[in-house]
């Protein structure tokens, strides 16, 4: 709540014309916005461009932020719409990536090969890799819930889904994550 009060104070300053104050919000949320964008596009350069675009849009429409929700929730809604709109334009690329995800990269990258054994990964690295193997919506959901500290209701508002739908998807996403960890990273887990 402290963070929210703080955000609103910064927003008031920006709306009063102190543009430099906006850097505080950018510094505070850049990692979250960038990580979420990366969950959609899986390319650091594109994710950074999208993240920048999100902050510029948020600045332009800052007067529309009413404070009914957390600033972060409002900001992540912009991330969602900006990334979806980008993906719609680059639809072919998305299909290719999905296909790759389904049939190729994960298998090639993580198949157990005695000659090309993966380095011992820390739990963090393993989880991070496992999340990257999830379908983008599931990865996004877990990032929003666990990392961006959004409640189930807030995740629903960001993704444009109902709370009960989010509950079901969260349950399934965790199940898939466990499956990936158990199948792909079995060796490391033992």
């Amino acid at each position, binding site marked *: 709540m402290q963070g929210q009060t703080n955000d609103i104070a910064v927003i008031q300053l920006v709306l009063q014309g102190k*543009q430099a104050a906006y850097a505080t919000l950018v510094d505070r949320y850049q*990692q979250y916005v*960038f990580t979420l964008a990366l969950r959609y596009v899986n390319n650091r350069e594109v994710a*950074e461009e999208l993240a920048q675009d999100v*902050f510029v849009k948020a600045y332009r429409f800052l*007067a529309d932020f009413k404070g009914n929700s957390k600033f972060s929730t409002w900001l992540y809604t912009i991330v969602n719409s900006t990334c979806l709109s980008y993906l719609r334009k680059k639809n072919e690329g998305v299909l290719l990536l999905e296909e790759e995800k389904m049939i190729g990269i994960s298998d090639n990258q993580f198949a157990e090969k005695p000659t090309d054994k993966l380095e011992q990964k820390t739990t963090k690295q393993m989880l*991070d890799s496992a999340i990257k193997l999830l379908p983008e919506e599931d990865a996004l959901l877990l990032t929003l819930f666990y990392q961006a500290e959004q409640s189930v209701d807030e995740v629903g508002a960001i993704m444009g889904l109902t709370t009960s739908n989010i509950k079901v998807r*969260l349950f399934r996403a*965790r199940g898939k*994550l466990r499956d990936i960890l158990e199948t792909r990273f079995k060796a490391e887990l033992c």
Partner: protein
Amino acid sequence: MEQEMDVQLWEYIDGICNETDAERIALLIKENAAWAEKYAELIAFNSEIVGSIELEQPSLRFTKNVMEAVAATHIAPAAKKYINPIIIRGIAAFFVVMILSTLVYAFATASYGSNSSSFFSELSLSKLDLSGIYSSAFLKVFMMVNIVLGLVLADGVLRKEKKRMPA
């Protein structure tokens, strides 16, 4: 059965179940070995996720880039300042009045006499005299404006397509 247990335990761990359910699940965890075991397993997995998902770091110039882009941008006025609800309600009222007056006119002019075969035969389209409307200058102007708008729209779509196509 096990999946149902999983669902309930996850809701309990996430703190999204109601108070009654929370008490019931807490009791089950305390008294039932299977529930206790599953709970311990899920809570361990949950802590693993909580402590392990890492945030990605954008480039060091990120804030600077955003602030440079923002410097050339103006904050748009709040939508509620330029969207006047009175105008929106006015437009809605206009359409409601138009529909209602058409209905009132249609019902008021329909003949309900016993010599008519049915009510719907009175509303037959063939009895409508549209010659006055189609010959009016208003309709011609209206059609012309629509054609021009259609051409502008088609031009916009084609330009967009041309932009998207690689050179």
